[in-house]
C-alpha cells in the first residue's frame, strides 16, 4: 500500500507542468480555441470537455449586430479553407445579455474577441466588456480580411495599429489586451512593434491569409464577398515562420507573450509553434473538423514533455536552436 502511494506520488510529481501565463492571466495549459471557430460560449460542449482547455476565445463582437457577408462564405482548398463570413455576430448588447452570463460558467480563462469599423467602436466595445470581471482579457481583432473597414485596414498600417491599440489601452488600462495581427503585410515585425509600443500585453498571430477562388464555369469568384481568408494546414509553415520572426526580433526582448495560430491540427504542430516562441496556441479550422483535437493536442504536448523529461512547457517556449 505504501509503495503504491509512493508510486502514485512520484507519478504525480513527474507529471509535466503545462501551465503558462499571459502577463497576469494563468492558463492551465497552452491550448485555446481560436476566435470565430468555437462559437460564443458552450456550442462545443457535446463534443469537447471545454474545462480541460487552457482558455476560450469567443468569436468577434462588434458594437451593432452584423448580418455578415452573402453566401458562399467558405470554400475548401487543398489542405485549407477560404472564409469570408464578414464578422456575422449578435452585437454587443445581445452578447452582454445572453452570452456573458453563460461565459461566467467557464472554469477556464475566457477572452472576448473585439472588432469594429472605427477606433471609437473598438473603444466602446472594449470598455463595456472590461466591466465583466470574469472576462480575463480582450483579443483585439485588427486583422479581419473580410469586411471593408473591419480591422485589416487598421492592421496593415503601423500608424493605425498604434493609434487603435493606444486608444483601447488608454480607455481600458487594466484588462489584458491581446492584439491579433494580420499576416497580410510586408513586414509583420513593424506592426507587431507598433502594437507593443502602444501598450499591447500579448500578440495573437496570425489571422488568415488573403486569398480567393474562381469558378471557371461562371467566371465569378466562388466567395460571395469575392475574397476571403485562408486558414488550415496549408498556412501552417507561413504562420510558424511569422511567429518565429516576431518572437526573435520583437517579442522576446519586449517580454511580450505570443499566442501562436495558423493551421494547427496536432500536438506536433502546437509544439512547433511553442518552440518557435509562442507561449500559448489557438486551434481554429481543425476544431471545425475534429473538435476532439483540442484535448488530444493537450495530451500530446503532455506526452512530449514526459518523453523528453521536460518538467514544464515553459522550459521549451522559444527554445528553437
Amino acid at each position, binding site marked *: 500500500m505504501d509503495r503504491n502511494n509512493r508510486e502514485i506520488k512520484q507519478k504525480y510529481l513527474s507529471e509535466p507542468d503545462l501551465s503558462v501565463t499571459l502577463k497576469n492571466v494563468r492558463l492551465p495549459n497552452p491550448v485555446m480555441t481560436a476566435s470565430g471557430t468555437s462559437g460564443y460560449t458552450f456550442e462545443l460542449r*457535446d463534443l469537447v470537455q471545454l474545462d480541460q482547455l487552457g482558455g476560450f476565445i469567443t468569436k468577434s463582437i462588434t458594437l451593432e449586430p452584423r448580418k*455578415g457577408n452573402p453566401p458562399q*462564405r467558405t470554400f*475548401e482548398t487543398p489542405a485549407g479553407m477560404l472564409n469570408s463570413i464578414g464578422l*456575422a455576430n449578435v452585437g454587443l448588447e445581445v452578447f452582454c445579455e445572453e452570452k456573458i452570463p453563460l461565459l461566467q460558467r467557464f472554469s477556464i480563462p475566457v477572452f472576448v474577441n473585439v472588432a469594429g469599423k472605427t477606433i471609437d467602436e473598438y473603444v466602446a466595445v472594449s470598455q463595456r466588456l472590461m466591466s465583466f470581471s470574469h472576462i480575463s482579457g480582450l483579443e483585439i481583432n485588427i486583422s479581419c480580411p473580410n469586411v471593408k473597414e473591419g480591422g485589416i485596414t487598421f492592421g496593415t498600417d503601423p500608424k493605425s495599429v498604434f493609434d487603435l491599440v493606444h486608444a483601447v489601452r488608454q480607455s481600458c488600462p487594466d484588462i489584458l489586451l491581446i492584439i491579433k495581427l494580420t499576416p497580410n503585410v510586408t513586414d509583420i515585425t513593424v506592426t507587431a512593434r507598433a502594437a507593443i509600443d502602444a501598450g499591447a500585453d500579448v500578440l495573437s498571430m496570425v489571422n488568415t491569409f488573403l486569398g480567393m477562388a474562381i469558378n471557371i464555369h461562371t467566371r465569378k469568384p466562388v466567395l460571395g464577398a469575392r475574397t476571403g481568408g485562408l486558414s488550415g494546414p496549408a498556412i501552417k509553415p507561413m504562420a510558424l515562420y511569422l511567429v518565429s520572426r516576431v518572437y526573435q526580433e520583437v517579442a522576446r526582448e519586449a517580454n511580450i507573450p505570443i499566442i501562436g495560430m495558423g493551421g494547427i*491540427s496536432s500536438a506536433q504542430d502546437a509544439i512547433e509553434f511553442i518552440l518557435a516562441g509562442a507561449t500559448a496556441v489557438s486551434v481554429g479550422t481543425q476544431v471545425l473538423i475534429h473538435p476532439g483535437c483540442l484535448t488530444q493536442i493537450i495530451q500530446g504536448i503532455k506526452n512530449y514533455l514526459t518523453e523528453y523529461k521536460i518538467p514544464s512547457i515553459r522550459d521549451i517556449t522559444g527554445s528553437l536552436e
Partner: protein
Amino acid sequence: MNTPNTHTTQKGEFSARVAQHDTFGYDIFSIHIELVGPAFATFKQAKPGQFVQLACRDISNYHCPTPLLRRPFSIAGVNIISEESLLIEVIYHVVGPGTKWLQDQKVGNKINLIGPLGNNFKLPENQDSQIFLIGGGVGLPPMFFLADQLVNYGHNQIIAIAGARSSKYLENAIENHLIPIQNPLEANLYLKQFSRSNTKCIIATDDGSLGFHGNVVQALDAYLSKNPCNNQAQIFCCGPHGMLKSIALFAQSRHIECQVCMEAYMACGIGLCQSCAVPVQTSSNTDEWQYKLVCTNGPVFNSKMILWDKIEI
C-alpha cells in the same frame, strides 16, 4: 462540470462501421453504418431532417488531410437492430473527392462522424392530413426517413413524389418498373426506401425515361388537378434550391403548408463557422431578415420564411 445543468448530450463524434454498401442509382450509393454504445444512445433519438457530418478520410492522418472538411449528408433512415446497435443509412451522389472516398469504403471499414445534427420536420397534428413528400435527386433521403416516422405516428394519407433527371439515377432502388404508361401519376410501391414504410410514390423524370415526364412541381400540379384534396394538405420537400423555390411558390399559391429541408455549403455543420447562411424573414415585413444557419437553425424551415429571391440559384 461547469456547463449549464439542464444540458443533455444531443450529438457526438463517433467512429462507425460500414455494415452495408449498395448502389442506389447511377453514381449514387446507399451506405449503412453501424453505431453502438454511446453512439447508439445518441442516434436512437435522431429525427427526419437531421444530418450527419462524415469525415471522408482518415481523420487522424495529419499529413494528408484531404478532403479537409467533413461532408454533410441527410439521414435516410435509422434501423434499430438490437438493444445496443443501430444502422443509419446515408445516400450520396459521387461528385467530388469526399464522396469518391466514401464510394471506396468496404463493409467493415470505419468512418468518423458527427451527429445527429440540425433540427427536424414538424409533423402535422392531424393524422388525416394529406401529406406530400417531395424529393429531388439526393434530396430524397430525408423523405425516406420522414415516411418511416409519419407511418409510425399513424399518418396514412401520404403520397411521395421522387424526382430525378433520368431513370438511371434511381434504377437500383426501383422495385417495380411497371409504372402504367397511361397513368404515370398513379402512386404505388415503386421505390425500395419508401416501400419499407408502405409509402406509395410517383416517379417524375426530367427526360421522361420513367414515370411522369416532367419535374416534381409539374407532377404535383398534375396530380392535384386529377385528385383535388379535400383535407388540409402539407408538403415536405428536399432538393436543390431551384426545386425548393418552385415548390415553395406553388405551395404558397395553393395555400398549402410547406416545410423545406435546405442544402448548403458547410464547413463545420455545428454552428461554429457560419458558412451555411440562408436569408430568413424575421417578421411579416420582408425587409426584416437575418441570415440563419442551415446547420443549426435548419436544415428544415417553413418555406414562407425563406427569402428565395435573395438566394442565388
